[in-house]
């Protein structure tokens, strides 16, 4: 590879991006201008620089004209920097001898009506990129091996799907779930729209597949506490909470729960607190693993040190599995990649008191309705309130979704599950009067519109209201009255609220541990909403399911399979390139003052001493694997003793100087 160190030959390529750039920026003028800049050997424009013929132009100039630094002025480097780096590499040039000027997102699109000023701005941006390009040095990628294991956090349908798909590629996979069983929200559902498949019938076989899979290690009732390291080499600390039951001995017979003195007295969260359980419990009969857990906040023995003369659960357990002295266990897992599949919470409707939730037991959420209608639920699937079948049922959509003052997004599943709920009441309660208050029915998925039409034809009355129109649910004579603006009042026996899907309320801790970002809606942020929907900005960490945004089951499963494929790539490849744009100590400038050491967020810097010319020389040493290239060190150093390759102070400064025209 030839490199003209002191006098580089720079090629400048301006993209028209169809007319996205050229409709605003006078591309020809920018090309002409670029030719006048120092060290620019060639300057061209093309309709689409990212296309094959566009790339070929660059390659040809590298080969024929000896271009050794490339500047492309086009879209955001967040979009196509990797594309053009690969072009350089193909042509035998170091991929880091490349700089991009963003004249689309930051120029033509933002100043669509100011053509002259946009053209001047594009010239400036090109001049700045050329100034930096002149100082770019080739960088060598460092290869590190990737550990052949993956971690999936969350054991709902997305985590289950992701774990199975990774493990089916022959990769050892840890599946960590914080509750005592996998299954997640889907296990709580009765039927699934639009096909009305029984949720348990399609989910539980997958749960069993997880338990039986030779390459999946299941860690239930466990929490991810700490994640260190980087892609290929994550070190994950997991706390396996004490179940107070030895899961190797427990056979899941349930005699302990029968014997528990709190039997039928503890709120059952799996049934959305509509039913009761014991202090020792399995969340639901098909739980995986089918092992009992003692609820430490409820168990009399754990709280007081005494439960009768001898704990009845312990007495009932023939397998001798109960151990009230059990302690949490902390394990460390080494994994190459991580999939986050932590699911969602539901909007708390007490935040909107007008819906009357919490004031009357006749106002319930959609998920509570699922438990009420499920044959494994507290009423055995018989829809009843206070022991009586409700004859008039009102469903209200968009509770906490599509709210400009709250969650602005649409939760995507409520329209269809409400249609399903209405259908289930129609099926089970003879002669019921059913009303759905909706704003827009969003039936966008495969088979959704057909299902919605079917339900409407079953004599369910769909009443349209605007999102901002007042609606109120009040208790009256043992019933609930729904007063919707512009509609006659309805005296109902039951009101079902379609509450919004929201990010897990307590997700902040995990977000911090994983160092992944959340959007304004609090859902985890993908790198690119269209092209990289499963990747986070932290390399090696991927997203699946509702933790990234509301989704139905088909979309969740599709995304989980995609995330599994993404997470498997570095593992199957066996090695990963580390970004060489990390910090480098310039020993001759560094006097070992150590100002940079404390601010480093990754503890990647250490002060060392060595003998030089018969005297002790202090200097700083940078750990390349730990360094992420943030450059806090570079900005702290008073002497340019530490730099970030590709973003050196000299290079950034050259851009400023080029802009201001000082040399």
């Amino acid at each position: 590879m030839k490199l003209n160190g002191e006098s580089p030959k720079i090629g400048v390529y301006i993209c028209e991006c169809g007319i996205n750039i050229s409709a605003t920026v006078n591309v020809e003028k920018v090309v002409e201008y670029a030719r006048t800049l120092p060290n620019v050997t060639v300057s061209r424009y093309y309709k689409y620089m990212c296309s094959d013929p566009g790339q070929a132009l660059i390659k040809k100039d590298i080969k024929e004209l000896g271009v050794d630094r490339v500047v492309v002025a086009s879209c955001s480097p967040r979009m196509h920097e990797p594309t053009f780096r690969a072009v350089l590499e193909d042509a035998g040039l170091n991929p880091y001898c490349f700089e991009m000027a963003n004249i689309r997102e930051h120029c033509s699109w933002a100043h669509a009506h100011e053509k002259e000023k946009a053209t001047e701005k594009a010239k400036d941006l090109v001049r700045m990129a050329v100034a930096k390009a002149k100082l770019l040095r080739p960088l060598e990628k460092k290869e590190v091996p990737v550990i052949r294991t993956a971690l999936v956090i969350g054991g709902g349908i997305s985590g289950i799907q992701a774990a199975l798909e990774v493990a089916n590629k022959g990769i050892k996979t840890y599946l960590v779930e914080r509750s005592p069983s996998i299954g997640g929200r889907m296990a709580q559902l009765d039927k699934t729209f639009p096909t009305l498949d029984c949720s348990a019938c399609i989910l539980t076989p997958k749960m069993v597949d997880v338990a039986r899979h030779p390459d999946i290690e299941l860690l239930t009732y466990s929490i991810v506490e700490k994640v260190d390291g980087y892609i290929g080499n994550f070190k994950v600390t997991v706390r396996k909470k004490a179940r107070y039951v030895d899961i190797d001995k427990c056979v899941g017979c349930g005699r302990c729960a029968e014997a528990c003195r709190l039997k039928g007295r503890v709120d059952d969260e799996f049934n959305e607190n509509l039913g009761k359980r014991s202090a020792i419990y399995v969340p639901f009969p098909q739980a995986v693993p089918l092992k009992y857990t003692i609820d430490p906040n409820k168990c009399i023995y754990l709280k007081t040190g005494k439960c009768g003369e001898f704990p009845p659960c312990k007495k009932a357990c023939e397998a001798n599995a109960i151990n009230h002295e059990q302690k949490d266990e902390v394990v460390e897992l080494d994994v190459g990649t991580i999939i986050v599949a932590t699911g969602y919470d539901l909007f708390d409707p007490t935040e909107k008191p007008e819906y009357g939730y919490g004031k009357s037991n006749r106002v319930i959420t959609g998920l509570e309705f699922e438990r009420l209608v499920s044959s494994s639920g507290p009423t055995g699937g018989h829809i009843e309130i206070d022991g009586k079948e409700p004859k008039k049922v009102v469903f209200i959509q968009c509770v906490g979704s599509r709210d400009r003052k709250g969650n602005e997004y649409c939760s995507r599943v409520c329209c269809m599950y409400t249609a399903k709920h209405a259908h289930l009441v129609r099926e089970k309660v003879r002669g019921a009067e059913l009303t759905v208050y909706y704003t827009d029915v969003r039936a966008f998925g495969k088979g959704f519109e057909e299902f919605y039409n079917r339900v409407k034809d079953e004599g369910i009355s769909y009443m349209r209201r605007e999102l901002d129109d007042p609606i109120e649910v009040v208790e009256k004579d043992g019933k609930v009255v729904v007063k919707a603006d512009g509609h006659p009042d309805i005296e109902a026996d039951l009101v079902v609220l379609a509450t919004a899907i929201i990010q897990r309320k307590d997700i902040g801790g995990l977000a911090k541990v994983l160092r992944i970002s959340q959007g304004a809606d609090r859902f985890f942020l993908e790198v690119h909403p269209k092209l990289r929907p499963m990747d986070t900005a932290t390399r090696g960490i991927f997203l699946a399911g509702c933790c990234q945004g509301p989704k139905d089951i088909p979309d969740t499963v599709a995304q989980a399979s995609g995330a599994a494929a993404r997470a498997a790539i570095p593992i199957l490849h066996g090695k990963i390139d580390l970004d060489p744009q990390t910090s480098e100590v310039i020993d001759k400038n560094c006097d070992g003052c150590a100002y940079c050491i404390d601010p480093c967020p990754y503890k990647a810097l250490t002060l060392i001493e060595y003998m030089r010319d018969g005297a002790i020389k202090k200097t700083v040493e940078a750990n390349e694997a730990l360094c992420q290239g943030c450059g806090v060190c570079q900005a702290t150093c008073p002497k340019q003793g530490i730099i970030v390759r590709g973003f050196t102070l000299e290079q950034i400064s050259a851009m400023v100087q080029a802009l201001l025209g000082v040399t």
Partner: protein
Amino acid sequence: MSDDFEPLIVTFCCNWCSYAGADLAGTSRVQYPPNIRIIRVMCSGMVHPNLVIDALMKGADGVLICGCHPGDCHYLEGNLTAEKRAEAIRLMLEDLGIETERFRLEWVSASEGQRFGKVVKDMVEQIKTLGPSPYRTQRMTQ
């Protein structure tokens, strides 16, 4: 101050939040004044105080640093380091007799395209009120 004064504002955007926020502003066709020139840095904490001082001493009318909101920094707390440094930068500017309003540190997330446009608009308006930098004659490009 002439009415047709068009400020030139050197803008540093962190790669993860603010640069992406500026991208989103463009993608969403948010229109804002073309007076800024964005330099991509990996983190707002990467911007050396000397870069800010130097830019203002060499005739930039303003310097804007945009980073992730506190708590959202891709590098955990680089933005907080930037915030601490901003205090020091303002003190230096005072010493040099440069209006501290010519320098701003703002938080813009990757999803705040609208906000990015507003931040730029506000800053351009403020600099227009302040007038050209006293060091503008240092500049070769106008």
